[in-house]
């Protein structure tokens, strides 16, 4: 029977350190305890989730389905420019001498 050999991938581990007020540290530790995790295990999970969310938020603009549908409909039949917008654009052109 073939035995699967455990492959240890070489991962460079780096240290993350930060200074926080004692009360905040206690709060972190309490939260980790409630989750049944060590502080560093908990921090890694929480930070990784926050990072994913942050990156996703940047790539995607959160919008309700109904509003995204309305957006797409507006793109397919775009509203006419408002007078205010056209006048503003004319002033912009004039001010810059374009």
């Amino acid at each position, binding site marked *: 029977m073939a035995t699967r050999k455990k492959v240890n991938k070489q991962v460079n581990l780096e240290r993350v350190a930060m200074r926080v007020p004692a009360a905040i540290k206690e709060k972190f530790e309490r939260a980790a305890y409630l989750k049944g995790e060590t502080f560093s295990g908990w921090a890694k999970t929480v930070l990784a989730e926050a990072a994913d969310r942050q990156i996703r938020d940047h790539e995607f603009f959160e919008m*309700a*389905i109904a509003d*995204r549908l309305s*957006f797409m*409909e*507006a793109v397919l039949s775009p509203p006419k420019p*408002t007078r205010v917008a056209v006048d503003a*654009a004319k002033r912009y052109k004039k*001010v810059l001498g374009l």
Partner: protein
Amino acid sequence: MLTTITLNRTEQLDVDKHNRAGFSCGVKELDKFLQQKARKESPSLSLTFVATCAEDPAQILGYFSLSATNLRADDLPDDIRKKFGQYGVVPATLLGRLAVAENYQRSKDLRLGEFLLIDAMFRTWNAAQSVASFGMLVRILKGDKGDPTPFYDRFGFIRCAQTADSVYLPMKTSEGILQESGLIP
């Protein structure tokens, strides 16, 4: 505060040239963005453009920031989704921030808010000639200065019915504005 102002074309924020610390619009978050975040976000997250004048080119009269973003489409009905390509995302442009220096907010001659918004539309339209963007999206920040939603209403932005504080303007509408004013053919 300057009495005569000849506006320059907007330019990308240059921290060696523009005086960020002197900028105040009355909404802390917007001042802080310009002072602490704008440079760090450039160029990978967002680009910040500033309005300056010939009389004092270091002084920031107002600014806005732009970035590329997307709307999810993978959860939408096939018939409409397919009109926007096959990738399940709809590319758009985010007008992340727009602010005018407090001293110049009331100036009826300068109208810096509209100047910045039109400039943002113009830049967005130009960029969209190379990289697709179907419209401009704005998440409205209701700050110490009140609610700017009516400002966007006047320019034709459409309010989201279900997504809080969000408005958008289709690119074709921006294009119409720029065409009718003669900024583009």
